């Protein structure tokens, strides 16, 4: 199962650059320069997890904003972390299965969580609060939805997951390792039969 995906994955995300072939009449200096460039260049050490949040419809009452924060599990206290600017909820409710929805930019937030190499192995915790204040600074009792992501990051890879929040209500859910995708396509799991993730080399 995994092998065919690995091949298509490599075809879609070709690794590394292809340098020009023939050096021609290259000088010693250009050889040295090339070596210097190669020695100084590096590979991606960070990773980015793109979380698609389909936000709930604005309920009756005052206008609400979705305010999103993220931290490694066990990280700093929420109150000490910066929050993204509040995203206003829209009047229209999304419909249909979560994976089939076409995200309306006005009713969704797609955020990138960037981790450096020291944070790649830790689970992630995302908090979405629904506040009247776009900064959520004055609404400590705002309902919040917590999303635990078991394994969001893989070195040098973009990964994605989608969460559909259908109600302005407290809640908590877990995105398991195999629900985080690192390739495009329509599959029911992002792990191989041997349990390895598509972002990892197969056993």
């Amino acid at each position, binding site marked *: *199962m995994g*092998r*065919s*995906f690995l091949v*298509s994955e490599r*075809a*879609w*995300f070709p690794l590394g650059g292809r340098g020009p072939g023939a050096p021609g009449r290259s*000088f010693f*200096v*250009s050889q*040295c*320069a090339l070596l*210097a*460039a*190669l*020695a*100084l*260049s*590096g*590979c*991606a*050490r*960070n*990773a*980015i997890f*793109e979380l*698609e949040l389909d936000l709930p419809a604005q309920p009756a009452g005052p206008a609400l904003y979705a305010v*999103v*924060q*993220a*931290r*490694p599990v066990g*990280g700093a206290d929420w109150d000490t972390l*910066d929050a*993204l600017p509040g995203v206003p909820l829209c009047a229209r409710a999304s419909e249909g299965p979560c*994976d*089939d*929805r*076409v*995200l309306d*930019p006005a009713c969704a*937030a*797609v*955020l*990138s*969580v*960037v981790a450096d190499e020291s*944070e790649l192995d830790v689970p*992630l915790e995302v908090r979405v609060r629904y506040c009247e204040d776009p900064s959520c600074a004055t609404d400590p009792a705002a309902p919040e939805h917590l999303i635990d992501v078991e394994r969001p990051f893989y070195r040098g*890879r*973009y990964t*994605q997951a989608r969460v559909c929040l259908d109600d302005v209500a407290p809640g908590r859910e877990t995105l398991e390792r195999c629900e985080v995708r690192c*390739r*495009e*396509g*329509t*599959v*029911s*799991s992002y792990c191989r039969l041997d349990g390895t993730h598509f972002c990892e080399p197969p056993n």
Partner: protein
Amino acid sequence: MRALASILILSLWASGAFAQLPEPPASPSETEVSGGRAAFLEGIGHARAERWEAAREAFERSYTLSGSPIALFNLASTDAELGRHRRALEAFDRLLTDPELDAETRARAETLRRRSAARVGAITIRGVPAGDARVTEDGRLRAITDERPIELILDPGPHVLAVGLPDVEPWTWSGDVAPGALLDLDATLENPSPPTPVVEPGDDPLPWILIGVGAAVLTGAVVTGLILDQEAQLSPRTDLVIDL
């Protein structure tokens, strides 16, 4: 796996349940039909083994020979499975124009089409002067168009776009297209650089050129090396960013 199920459930065609063939081709011969069916079965076999590239090739061959909408459905599904959602969209759109498509296949195609539509990025390129613009995507000619603005659908991932018009420097853009992204790009096309100065007879510029090239290569390589490490790091593709 849903895609595999989508493909396998339509293997009825192989048993003759969907023997009527629409365009194209207009009037396939028996040999072509037979070849199309064989290619279809071959594609099913590859799909069962999850050899998607081989499956895609077989379904494409089947459709080319037979014009079967089911072959077209499987071709589109396989493209989606391979992450080639733009191609999948084209195939699904073509399939859905078939008035004879059965309801179940149509419903499945519409569902899969919606998924692919949610994955592609929509690019709008504004500011291109009037005329036949040559648009390339990742080094391949995508279109020659006089429509403005230029609108493109791209699969998610890294892309290089170029727009050229006669007698002007081409405009290029490179970047990552996130799934569902809506990008509005402003193209600026400028006149070409001035003509090369004339070298006087007797002045041999070669040594100076070589020295200049060597120095430029050295400087460029060092600078490139310094910035490559930074550039090698992934960059966010969305506006909302949280740096842990």
